[in-house]
């Protein structure tokens, strides 16, 4: 065994020890969640914009703006949009369905994030095409960390 093999062995050993500690949902769970909502249809990048702070001090309330480029006319409009968080225990955060009186496909809310992760926005158009975007957010204190004092 040479030095390289020894280092690789140490590295994989460390990964095995750390794996059970990662109890929150991994990227596989968000893939499954997206599949259960949209049924594995192909998606393209673009048209959807997510605005989130780059750094969130607390994951309890992170402001989020989702907007989709669409004329919102009777024939060309956004049917629904979903927000997913890649490492939240429950990846699906909210589903918005835009009705006939929606002025624009823009939406603002506050979400919870369990830690530093990617937030994914997916929109379904009236021609049933899917568009997605992904934004990385750094979270100092996650929403699921049990804090003794609630604020």
């Amino acid at each position, binding site marked *: 065994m040479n030095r390289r093999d020894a280092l690789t062995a140490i590295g994989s050993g460390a990964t095995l020890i750390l794996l059970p500690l990662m109890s929150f949902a991994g990227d596989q769970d968000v893939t499954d969640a997206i599949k259960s909502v949209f049924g594995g249809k192909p998606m393209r990048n673009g048209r959807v914009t997510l605005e989130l702070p780059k750094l969130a001090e607390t994951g*309890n309330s992170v402001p989020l703006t989702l907007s989709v480029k669409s004329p919102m006319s009777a024939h060309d409009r956004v049917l629904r949009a979903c927000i997913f968080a890649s490492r939240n225990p429950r990846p699906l955060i909210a589903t*918005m369905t835009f009705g006939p009186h929606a002025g624009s496909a823009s939406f603002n*809310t506050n979400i*919870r994030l369990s830690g530093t992760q990617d937030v994914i926005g997916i929109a379904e158009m009236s021609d049933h095409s899917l568009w997605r975007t992904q934004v990385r957010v750094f979270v100092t204190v996650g929403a699921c960390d049990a804090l003794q004092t609630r604020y």
Partner: protein
Amino acid sequence: MANSRIKVPESARVGEAVEIRAMVMHPMENGYNVDTQGTTIPVHIITDFVCRYDGAEVIRVKLEPGLSANPFFSFYLKATKTGAVDFEWVDQDGTVTTAGATLRVG
């Protein structure tokens, strides 16, 4: 049950997209918090939010525990004629909270 706050502009021009804001007081317990006795507080959330105007829906939101406490939404409504803008929040227990305002168009 819950206390709600809405913001609808008093008047708008025909075809204008006006911003609507709606918030409801609700803990949105996500099932991960513990009380002072150390027992887990069960999930208690609002599951649905609907805004209706001029006989049709503006937006419908399916809420999950991943939304913050006191869920706040802002979105845009296309003004067509003077009418009521109605808001409805449905709790997981079936408790309904409603609010409404009138939008004057013209």
